[in-house]
């Protein structure tokens, strides 16, 4: 089995596990979504309305567990995640479609930028081990340990409230109609700068530390020493000999860390009232909107799995060994 097929199978299994967990959670702890609606209207809703609300939200459990499961999987494949109870009668999939682009563009771009800058800094720090970049390491560790949302609060206070260089909240200026015209796009970019800066500053240290450590280990390898002994220019030794090899574990680390970064970024969206999926998630949590929460969980999981798959493709592209195995098998 080739590397990519093996990874693909793995992600399918992971997606299936997430689906199945998502299916069983409400069934092991049942009744909450309906009860939260019942509790909202204690006077107007009779206990007999219970079944009706269940049917309305699509959470009524009829038939054997196996039938429910099949129906559930079929629904998911049709992007039918049920009906939101807090924004009834909006479909969960509609809400997801409205918010997902915001988050993917913001978090995706910022994460890739942070990864690239962090990796380059890590290469420099690893190469000049013990040099000036190493001296700022404790500071970077501190930066990395700050929760994203707290960092966002501080930046917001500094740049939006005190200095007023950036807008305080929202994804675009009020009064603009979203669409493909410059007014809207420039406003959206302007509003996303501070959240993007938060993600970059908060996550850059992690990538840098990781790359630095792998780089230090790689530099000790015989082939790097040999390349230096041959008298190759430093630039070439750093880039084609050391960094090229050190980047592989770094990429694998990216795959594993992306879920963590996304989670942090989601919470951060609240601070900026950014119209992304994180804000939607928090609104769903505060209003006990279970179908929405579950839909968001699935979508985030699939997005993270997809990001991992892309990273694997990049690994095959960068790593000649993986490519060679692709060709021979």
């Amino acid at each position, binding site marked *: 089995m080739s590397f990519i097929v093996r990874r693909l199978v793995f992600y399918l299994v992971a997606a299936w596990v997430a689906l199945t967990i998502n299916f069983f959670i409400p069934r092991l702890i049942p009744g909450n979504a309906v009860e939260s609606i019942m509790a909202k209207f204690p006077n107007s809703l009779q206990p007999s309305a219970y079944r009706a609300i269940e049917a309305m939200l699509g959470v009524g459990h009829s038939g054997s567990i196996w039938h429910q499961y099949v129906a559930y999987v079929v629904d998911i494949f049709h992007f039918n995640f049920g009906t939101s109870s807090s924004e009834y009668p909006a479909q969960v999939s509609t809400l997801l479609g409205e918010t997902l682009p915001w988050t993917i563009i913001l978090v995706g771009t910022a994460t890739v930028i942070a990864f690239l800058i962090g990796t380059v800094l890590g290469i420099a720090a690893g190469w000049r081990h013990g040099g000036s970049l190493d001296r700022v390491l404790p500071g970077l560790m501190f930066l990395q340990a700050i929760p994203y949302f707290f960092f966002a609060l501080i930046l917001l206070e500094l740049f939006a409230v005190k200095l007023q260089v950036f807008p305080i909240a929202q994804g675009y200026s009020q009064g603009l109609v979203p669409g493909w015209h410059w007014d809207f796009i420039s406003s959206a970019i302007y509003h996303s700068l501070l959240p993007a800066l938060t993600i970059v500053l908060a996550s850059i240290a992690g990538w840098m530390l990781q790359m630095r450590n792998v780089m230090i280990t790689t530099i000790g390898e015989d082939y790097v020493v040999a390349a230096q002994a041959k008298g190759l220019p430093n630039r070439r030794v750093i880039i084609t000999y050391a960094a090229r090899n050190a980047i592989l574990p770094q990429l694998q680390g990216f795959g594993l860390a992306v*879920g963590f970064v996304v989670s942090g970024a989601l919470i951060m969206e609240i601070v900026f009232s950014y119209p992304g999926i994180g804000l939607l998630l928090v609104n769903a949590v505060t209003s006990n909107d279970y179908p929405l929460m579950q839909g968001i969980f699935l979508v985030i*999981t699939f997005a993270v799995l997809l990001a991992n798959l892309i990273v694997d493709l990049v690994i095959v592209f960068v790593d000649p060994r993986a490519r060679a195995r692709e060709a021979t098998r």
Partner: protein
Amino acid sequence: MTVAPAVSADPTAVPQEAAQPGRWRRMPTKGKVGVVLSAVFVLAAIIGPLVTPYDPSYQNPSPSASMNAPSAAHLLGTTQSGQDVMSQLLVGIRLTLELGIIVGLVATAIAVIVGVTAAFLGGWWDELLSLLTNVFLVIPALPLLIILLGYLPNKGEAPTIFVLSVLGWPWGARVIRAQTLAIRNRDFVAASRETGERTWRIIAFEIIPNEVSLIAASFVNTVLYAIGASVALAFIGVADLNSWSLGTMLYWAESQQALQLGAWWWFVPPGLVVALMGTALVLLNTGIDELGNPRLRDASSASRIAGRWLKPADPTPVLSEISQRRNGLAGFLHSFSRSSLLEGAEPGEGR
């Protein structure tokens, strides 16, 4: 991990020390800072709640007590409802650290069990447990935590600890499995197997002791994860909001608009403490890492060897020293940092 107390600086004792330097001595500076900072927080967690100047929940009804800037009476000022921020912080450190440590213990125990079992049983068990580990490693934990806690009827400390532990073990399990696989075939394990030792005895007395530093690192990482996740969860309101943790402090500060009202003394201290705790744990972990992998240390001779100052003229003596050192934990760390997902992709790894 244990830290030996600093040895006395008596000059007559120097030769003896040089022969057998204490662990504290060998600890890199970053690690020392990490130990000291962590100790400060643990101390604050133990003593803090006993010395709080006020009841953290007491709401002072008088309007003059609301939103006071830091003063002698209220070292960190007061909240909008006149609660003392310092008292909340001291109680909050206790609750957050307590939660982190319990989750760390439980999740690390699960990680050791899963990792050692997978590596020891091998075959299908290993495939299955590794698959499970990798799947839970790749599924983003926070949204799952949110739905799990969202569905649970009460959101207090116990359910949070339970859910965080259930999702906190995969990282450790993966590292411990890899280490166990590496030690399993070493001679001393083979020897004890030949002498007829039972499997559990081999695991408890041959394998585990060789993984102590790895388990410690895994524990520290899990505590870090638990603190981060619990603070984030509390910040969005998925927690017992009547108790005082660093996360709930931030939740109340945010929801009562501390930022907009300019009450920096209200929301900065809890966030700063979370960040400092995180830094302490990361430093601690770096210390553990560097203890095992001399190459990562700075200011020692190793940096010169690994760095660009290496002179090709006479590299042999020092390099051979490194490759010797790489046999133990360092060798493992080396292999871990370079392999993982691409199983069997490291042709030079088995030397």
